[in-house]
């Protein structure tokens, strides 16, 4: 499959842009979806190093497509039970200490999720990359494809440009670099520790690295990951949030 795929790509480079742009779109979508699978359950470990704190969280996470996920904190004990639910464009947090479900309002969307370098907004906007950007191929080697993603003219996106690296032959994300409108690098997402699970190649570790704060980072690592767990949309409800 991989070899054939590469062979396909070479003629694609020679074709006029619209044609392989669409394909690139499809390719990016494919890669992203590969990462999410259809439904999944996983256990993740998140380590955050920032100017003001160092945190290590262990979480259970369920997802469905790109629209739904539920993440529950298992450790440390102080935060055990705190759960985040995202359904489409809305995010809720359940806080066991006060036994309350709080919907995240627009004013808090810019805030960090669980103290990491991921914002609440990132959660909502994640994996929409193929819808709001147009793509062109920057570079192609045996190891990777570098795709330049430029926001569509009216897309509600703060970035000036995103460069998406697809590692070959596994077709998994490698490095995703975010630039502001002046084309200055602002942050980088690095995917590694690729393993094969259930027939797919998945990078088990993602690192978020803000550019102007080299000492800070957020690292998320899957320790367990299962696909096609059989859960459906009804699982992602406010009721489940509280459990």
């Amino acid at each position, binding site marked *: 499959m991989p070899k054939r795929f590469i062979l396909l790509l070479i003629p694609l480079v020679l074709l006029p842009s619209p044609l392989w742009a669409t394909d690139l779109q499809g390719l990016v979508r494919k890669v992203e979806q590969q990462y999410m699978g259809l439904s999944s359950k996983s256990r993740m470990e998140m380590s955050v190093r920032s100017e003001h704190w160092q945190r290590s969280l262990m979480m259970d996470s369920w997802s469905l497509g790109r629209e739904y996920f539920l993440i529950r904190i298992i450790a440390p004990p102080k935060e055990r039970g705190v759960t985040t639910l995202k359904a489409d464009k809305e995010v809720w947090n359940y806080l066991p200490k006060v036994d*309350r479900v709080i*919907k995240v309002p627009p004013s808090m969307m810019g805030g960090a999720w669980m*103290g990491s370098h991921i914002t609440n907004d990132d959660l909502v906007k994640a994996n929409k990359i193929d819808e709001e950007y147009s793509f062109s191929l920057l570079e192609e080697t045996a190891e990777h494809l570098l795709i330049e993603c430029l926001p569509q003219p009216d897309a509600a996106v703060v970035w000036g440009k995103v460069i998406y690296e697809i590692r070959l032959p596994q077709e998994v994300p490698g490095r995703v670099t975010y630039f502001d409108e002046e084309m200055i690098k602002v942050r980088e997402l690095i995917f590694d520790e690729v393993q094969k699970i259930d027939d797919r190649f998945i990078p088990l570790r993602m690192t978020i690295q803000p550019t102007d704060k080299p000492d800070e980072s957020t690292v998320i690592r899957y320790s367990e990951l299962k696909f096609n767990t059989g859960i459906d949309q009804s699982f992602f409800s406010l009721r489940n949030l509280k459990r």
Partner: protein
Amino acid sequence: MIMLLHLAARNLWRNRRRTLLTLSAMVVSLALLTLSLGVFSGMLVDILSSTTEQYHGHLVITAEGYLDDRDMYKNFSADPALFSRLQQDQAVRGLSPRIRGFGLVSYQESSYPAELLGVRPEMEKSVTNLQTQLIAGVFPTDEDTEGAVLGSGLAKKLGVSPGDELVFVTQSADGSIGNDLLIVRGIFRTGHSGHDNSLVLVPQQWLQQVMALEGKLHEIALSVQYPLQAAEDAQRIATLLPAGLTATDWGVLLPEMREAIASFDVSRFIFVIILYFATGLGILNTIFMSVMERTREFGILMALGMRPFQIRLTVLLECLLLGLIGTALGLILGLLLSSYMALVGIDLSSWITPITYAGGTIQPRLTAIFEQRNFIDPAYMLLLVALLAGLLPARRAARLQPVAAIRED
């Protein structure tokens, strides 16, 4: 000299009616002058107090740069030694350590952004006056570990009243989601929409725990004896502070207030001119005339051998005596009237509600404040006018030929 003084006094006494007339004019004018200056000062201090004592305090001590962005990490440790050093300063009247957090306050289905101020109620009361502006419930006590007072606008939006339980959610300093419960003890209304719609006063230790900032503070708010001198107090207090902390006065915290005071000063300046003018001319007239009409008398005295300069001196002494007595009585009357205004004042609340002006809320009433300059300056002016008023006619009288003077009427 003594003889002239004696003469002056007797002259005054001899023509009691004229003396009394002049005196009464001086006394009443001076009293009214000091009263209105006092009311003016009262207004200014009122505006200043209500602006600063509602929330900011007259002075705040913070880490450098905290006031620009209110970054929760720009905090400092609570140090009792610092507190006592501050309290010993002669100008400091009250001190309140505070910690500040921003987040969401939630009740049942609604959530709204809020600013939480973690305070120690008894100490906070020595600096601000929210406890006097409650429209429901009570102000928490020091022992209350989870009680809160919030603004009426916020309370209304949430639909809470005293006794209800609130949830507060924030980003705490260690990266986790800080969250905990509060019980509404009271609701305040200041008239300032910013505070009424988003301010919540909570127990200090409670907020420190929620924010994972145990033992830390963001500011120490101070109230001083003379708010108008807060800038000087800030400079002096800065020397008591450890490195990294600065003292900032209300003039910097509330620049709109400084604008308001500037225009207020202009008004006051104009008023003072009007008042001094009206008073001065009145006195001038009176004294002037009373000397003029004694030209004949002076002529006789000169004919009898009194020398011109003695005449002048006598007149001046009379004016001086008159001025001193008038000033003294005028000051006393002014003090009495000002005291009444200061203690009782005039209440306008039946037709004006509290006003938000330049970042604070003003209670609608008229009162007076005792400021040295409101008494000393007018007193000096009166004396000056009294002397000046006598100068010209005295000189004129002294320069006349006795016969001409006697013939004058």
